[in-house]
């Protein structure tokens, strides 16, 4: 799973978000490192909707414009949990090996 996809799913983990909300959440989660642009975000959202990992929660009209809120589907939650566990296991293994090698990881 690409990092942007992982971060988008993470942004939706604790509740539904609209497009702009996802962009700000992703920036915050990544500590300002990942700044999604609209084109990249909507390409990813389209793919995630096709894969049924996310769905549309509700739609609102704000200042005359459509605002769509996206949420994780049960399949999306499962996929995100599996990916988080995989990354966690990899990170733990890396830290253990660094410690064994007398590295600086603490």
């Amino acid at each position, binding site marked *: 799973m690409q990092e942007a996809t992982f971060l988008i799913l993470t942004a939706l983990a604790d509740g539904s978000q609209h*497009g*702009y909300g996802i*962009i700000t959440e992703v920036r915050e989660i990544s500590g300002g490192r990942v700044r999604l*642009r*609209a*084109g*990249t975000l909507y*390409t990813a959202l*389209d793919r995630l909707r096709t894969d049924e990992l996310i769905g549309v929660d509700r739609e609102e009209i704000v200042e005359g*414009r459509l605002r769509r809120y996206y949420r994780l589907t049960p399949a999306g939650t499962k996929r995100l949990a599996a990916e988080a566990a995989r990354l966690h296991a990899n990170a733990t293994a890396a830290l253990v090996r660094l410690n064994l090698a007398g590295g600086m990881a603490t």
Partner: protein
Amino acid sequence: MTEQAGLERGYRRLLACYPKAYRRDNGDEILGVLMATAREGQRRVGLAESADLVRGALRMRLRPPSPPPRSVFTAVRLMCAGAAVELAAWITIVVTAGSVKSAMAPRGPAQWHAVLVHLVAVEVFGPIAIVVWLWMAWANGRGHEWARLLFMSFFALTTAGLLGWLGQGAAVYAPADLIAVAVLWLVQLAVMVLIFSKKSAPHYGHELAQK
């Protein structure tokens, strides 16, 4: 306000690169996000933003159509199989035409003439039917509602043809040909059940929902 209007026009021009159906469904929403993420006092669309939108538009244009439900997927495969059976049936009819003609000759000129007309029609329309099968597979796979209705007409024509042929006593003089046509009819019946099933309905409604 004029700065914003100019920026919005710039974004709209770039959004025009997206496929029409996608733009209709998401364009307004993306524009909202673009305007929300624009810098204070921004007048023009930045180079990186433009590249991102053009790349997004290209991906949308190059992406394969949304995968059909299993029922439609099976129907499309059956239609491809139908084209193969049609080809086999056509070859069978062409190869056995001589023996059918000689078998019919003693039965009198009227019946012989009717069978001859039928055989010539099958020989001519067989390749057309193969193309129709493949065309229907393509169009139904893409979820065109007209393709589903056209397939229904195709099925009605085959049913009428099969009944007409049975009426002529084809079971006696051309059993191999009749079996081939009956197999094709059964394949068409299976396709009809699949494409008109409830599970397939959203696939055909997809186009309408985007309008």
